[in-house]
């Protein structure tokens, strides 16, 4: 029984990370219907920025907040310079630009910070004996912190969307960009805000998991694949759906990898991708997404 609980907790810990990054993907998709393939690499780069700030003497918490702020602004710059000029409907060109951004950020991180993994300190005590006993398995502080931050971010987004004029404008833009424009809403500004929020959320998750994964140029690519799968399962235009789908994906994948003999942990990701393919065949908008597939 302990083993099952341990597996569930491992699954939830993975799932929270997938959901977190999926939230970033959804922030971009909601307004613009664009998939940002460079979201993972932007998060990784912010992780290195936090490392640089910490190395320059800032305490960990300020280094992280600094990196999140820098990423927030950088997200807007990327949207303004690279995405907006292409026009709202240039899906293909925007996808290619995000691939170009992916390659650039990946290589640049390698050039600036070198190839070796860099250790990054944790916000909460992360020594081997820092945990809470729970049915014979260990609840570590870091995963709890990540879950807490994720809930806080989602709470913040929920409040923003529900109770603020800006949030209402964002929801209007997501639902009907032309009508939003006709109500005096600066749609381009809202889209930029989507990219800025996404970059900030990405920076947050990268700096939070860096202590366990260490900072490497390839740290976020796998998570991007999972986040995309989670967002697709949860419905790309529903933040809550994407996060829940991420957690479900993490648990299911971990259980399958542990209990199905054939599937080792090297095929864990394959399990997630098979789930993605099956769901796309059955319910293309995912479980929580609104029923609006571009169908004739």
């Amino acid at each position: 029984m302990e083993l099952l609980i341990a597996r569930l907790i491992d699954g939830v810990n993975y799932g929270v990370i997938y959901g977190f990054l999926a939230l970033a993907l959804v922030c971009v998709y909601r307004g613009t219907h664009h998939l940002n393939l460079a979201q993972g690499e932007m998060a990784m780069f912010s992780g290195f920025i936090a490392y640089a700030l910490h190395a320059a003497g800032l305490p960990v918490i300020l280094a992280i907040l600094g990196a999140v702020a820098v990423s927030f602004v950088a997200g807007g710059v990327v949207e303004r310079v690279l995405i907006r000029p292409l026009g709202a409907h240039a899906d293909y060109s925007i996808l290619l630009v995000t691939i170009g951004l992916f390659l650039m950020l990946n290589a640049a991180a390698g050039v600036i910070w070198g190839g070796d993994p860099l250790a990054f300190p944790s916000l909460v005590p992360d020594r081997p004996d820092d945990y809470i006993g729970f049915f014979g398995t260990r609840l570590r502080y870091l995963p709890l912190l990540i879950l807490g931050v994720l809930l806080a971010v989602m709470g913040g987004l929920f409040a923003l969307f529900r109770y603020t004029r800006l949030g209402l404008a964002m929801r209007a833009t997501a639902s009907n960009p032309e009508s939003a424009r006709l109500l005096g809403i600066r749609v381009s500004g809202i889209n930029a805000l989507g990219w800025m929020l996404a970059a900030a959320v990405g920076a947050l998750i990268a700096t939070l998991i860096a202590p366990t994964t260490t900072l490497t140029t390839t740290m976020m690519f796998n998570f991007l694949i999972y986040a995309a799968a989670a967002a697709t399962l949860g419905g790309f235009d529903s933040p809550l759906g994407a996060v829940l789908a991420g957690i479900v994906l993490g648990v299911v994948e971990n259980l399958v990898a542990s209990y199905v003999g054939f599937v080792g942990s090297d095929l864990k990701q394959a399990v997630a991708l098979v789930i993605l393919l099956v769901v796309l065949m059955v319910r293309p908008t995912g479980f929580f997404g609104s029923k609006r597939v571009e169908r004739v």
Partner: protein
Amino acid sequence: MSMLSITDMYAGYGAGDVLDGVSLHVDAGEVVVVLGANGAGKTTLMRAVAGLISRRGGIELDGESIARAATDAIVRRGLALVPQGRGTIVDLTVEENLRAGAHVRRGRGLAEDLDRWYTQYPRLADRRKQKAGLLSGGEQQMLAIARAMMSRPRVLLCDEPSLGLSPLLTEELFESLRQINTDLGMAILVVEQNAMIALEIADRGYLLEIGEISESRPAAELAADDAVRAAYLGA
């Protein structure tokens, strides 16, 4: 000085121009109608003035040029467009649609305006918490007008409000437009195919045919003109 004046405007979709040098104006407190058959360029005219498509020529709102401004800037300056097909924001509730309408007013006088439009259109009041997508055609048209008015514009543009509505509902709708004009002294520009009802509430009217516009003529004269009756009234 007219509230909205358009001089020699060309507009179209990339390949060629749909409107060839259109000129018209709407004075303060006046209701003007532009009549035109399907494909005459009515929607293009509306979308050009609102800045949704590329256009050339003079467009002034209360003396200030908005020919090059972006749509959201135009709306902030006091022009509101009720688009063809009503532009309902389906994922938001009725009240949220109205609140979004007041975006440019940063919340000033929000409660007061809400009450005003709930009394103007009581059916919206009963369905205030429902998703706008669930409303009927007529209700969505009322919502569209109320949402546009929430920004307290200086001139209101309506693109074929009668589209897809029953004669009774159309009657009701145009009556509410007349009331808006008289109560608030709102300048209104309506493009319509349904000439008879439109001319009832209008002061002046224009005829728009294949991208070119006629001279302005008083509404009563247009209503009595046999050529117009044949073309638009389906007499």
